[in-house]
């Protein structure tokens, strides 16, 4: 295996990791506030198609990116209205967002399918750092969204663990009634978390359509939204572990199209005989294993899952 092939694999790993990290971070914020949003797939599709169309119309990828975040936020607004403000079931509401979002994106993107994207993100090398062997091309010669995802991850970690807002947000995910009784608005906190989550998912969709695929097709998201949902659990609802998990999931995603070209043998196993489709199962199976491991550990230590996850809250009801 040549050095170039390995670097190419790792560059793609970082990019796929960015994709699922952005969407996963949004889902993490929503889930820490106690709202499960199974609409990631639909929000990403909405962001991908609108971001792509806006970038074509204006010729500027950043405008497309911003539009995608806003549209993702608006899509998540439906989930916030139905499941937080109205207090209806989070599971069905989220699924409706996925099904409706995918359909809606396909509907408005009919004409965009044939468009070629010339306004896409390009790689930005960071002066000084991009010349470092190995780390340079892998980490510091990437599209700007990759750096932005890193900054957003640190910001989310800081807000969640070091600020009063973050404390209130985590508290409302553990016990809404307690948080309400000290004077916070449960509706406001949860709705904002869902909206921010939607913006992240929409932005992730735009990263897909404005860089990784550089185009829009129906079925572009291809289960990456579900991977983001899985990633939140795999990362035990913490931004740091989410980043580690996204690198692992990103690695499996990057490996899929490449694995059959690798002339490499590990412990007698010819790598190029591994099926890409079976490799794609790995993130989902790992997540199931992690969930079961968490439940075993929960006999001694509290579960990392927000205690109020999926429970709607109405002050007037017990």
């Amino acid at each position: 295996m040549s050095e170039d092939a390995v670097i190419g694999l790792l560059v793609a790993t970082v990019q796929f990791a960015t994709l699922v990290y952005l969407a996963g971070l949004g889902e993490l914020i929503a889930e820490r506030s106690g709202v499960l949003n199974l609409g990631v797939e639909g929000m990403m599709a909405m962001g991908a198609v609108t971001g792509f169309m806006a970038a074509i119309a204006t010729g500027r990828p950043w405008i497309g990116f911003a539009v995608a975040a806003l549209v993702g936020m608006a899509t998540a607004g439906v989930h916030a209205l139905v499941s937080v403000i109205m207090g209806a079931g989070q599971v069905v509401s989220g699924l409706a967002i996925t099904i409706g979002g995918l359909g809606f994106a396909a509907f408005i993107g009919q004409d965009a399918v044939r468009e070629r994207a010339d306004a896409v993100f390009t790689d930005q090398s960071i002066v000084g750092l991009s010349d470092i062997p190995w780390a340079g091309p892998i980490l510091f010669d990437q599209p700007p969204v990759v750096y932005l995802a890193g900054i957003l991850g640190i910001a989310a970690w800081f807000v969640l663990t070091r600020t009063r807002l973050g404390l209130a947000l985590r508290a409302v995910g553990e016990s809404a009634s307690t948080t309400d009784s000290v004077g916070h608005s449960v509706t406001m906190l949860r709705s904002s978390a869902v909206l921010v989550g939607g913006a992240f998912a929409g932005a992730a969709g735009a990263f897909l359509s404005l860089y990784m695929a550089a185009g829009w097709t129906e079925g572009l998201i291809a289960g990456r939204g579900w991977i983001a949902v899985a990633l939140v659990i795999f990362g035990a609802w913490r931004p740091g572990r989410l980043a580690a998990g996204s690198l692992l999931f990103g690695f499996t995603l990057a490996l899929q199209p490449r694995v059959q070209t690798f002339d490499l043998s590990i412990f007698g196993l010819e790598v190029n005989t591994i099926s890409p489709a079976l490799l794609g199962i790995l993130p989902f199976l790992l997540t199931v294993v992690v969930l079961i491991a968490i439940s075993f550990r929960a006999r001694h230590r509290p579960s990392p899952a927000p205690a109020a996850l999926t429970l709607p809250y109405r002050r007037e009801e017990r």
Partner: protein
Amino acid sequence: MTEPTHAPLHTVARGRARWHRIIVRPVLQRRARVAPAAQAIAFVIGIVLALIAGAMLLWGSGNDPATVYQRMAESSLGGFDALSRTLLRATPLAIAGLAVAVAGSMGLWNIGAEGQMMAGATVAAGFAMVAGDLPGPVLIVLMLVAGAVGGVVLVVGPALARAYLGVSEIITTLMLVEVAIRIVEWLKVGPWKDPESFGFAQISPLPDQASLPGLFGQVHIGVLFAAALLLAFWLAVSRTAWGYELRMAGSSPATARYAGISLQRKVLTALLLSGGLAGLAGAIELTGTATRLEPGLSSGYGFAGIIVAALALMRPSGVAVVAFVFGAVLRGGQSIQTLGVTSSIATILQAMILIGALVAAVLLNYRVRWVRPVGHPSEKSAPQAGPAPGGAPPSEGSSHPEASGV
């Protein structure tokens, strides 16, 4: 990583947002009397809202909504052939919806019906490969059994984890959807690749005798299975001790435990039955409409089944009605492609019906009261924030998981 220490939570309130001190805000209050058949009304409201929103969407994209809707109605409801095409799509929707409703009637969410349908179709197709010489009726019956087994195989892990470890079935069943679809993709290019297909990979076709007999028009006898299963479920849930225990275990686990019902066994049965039904739906779809197994065979029926069950409030009669309506929407969506309109309008309508019905159900069960905040300029006294005037004090207990009724 250990959590950093913070100031106690009550001191945090000082820094809270002040928006709800100045805004007159709505509060939902449970109605003392709910209209009879509130869910049916909500469903109709959902359909009307979805049709209005869909019309705006069509109009905005340069289509005439009246023409499109007329074509959808004619092709799905207008006449014998049209109805048979609707029933063809309603069949897998009803069985998948029933599968979700079985788990849902004890408060469990089988989000993985889509994957269990694929697993059922896969095992059924695999059985047809090894036993393709059997006569038609025998082969079909055994394929349907194999399908149920396939669904059970995919759900047994999540069911055991839920029953004995308390692992939420929502995520585990969902994860296995992607697993099942990717396994079929792997079979397609790998072990089950048709040696006679040179250009592009596809799975070998089913034997000729492995197709469900037709009934009338486009409909195959799967629709009778669906009707029989719905009837059996209705009898089992509402007329047997087993069904009573199942519902009790869902609505009040503590009572059920006190009455000597094994919750673990109930969870296990409900989820395994749910997976088996979804697997059966997959096998029926395979033998009824397809000539070979494909990764896209289920094409969203499993996920739509969740919406069907939710709209039906997990009741079999509701599942039948909603499945029929959704079948008509799917058939109508397919028919308008000849008008140059994409069939994705069907999935949009489905999602909008659900969202509209969810909102309508809440408004039928709750009254909206506009609460003026304490400390509002229009009020003289009230020095500090407290419970809203007239409103109940904040409840101590956590929220109710099924508060909305949907």
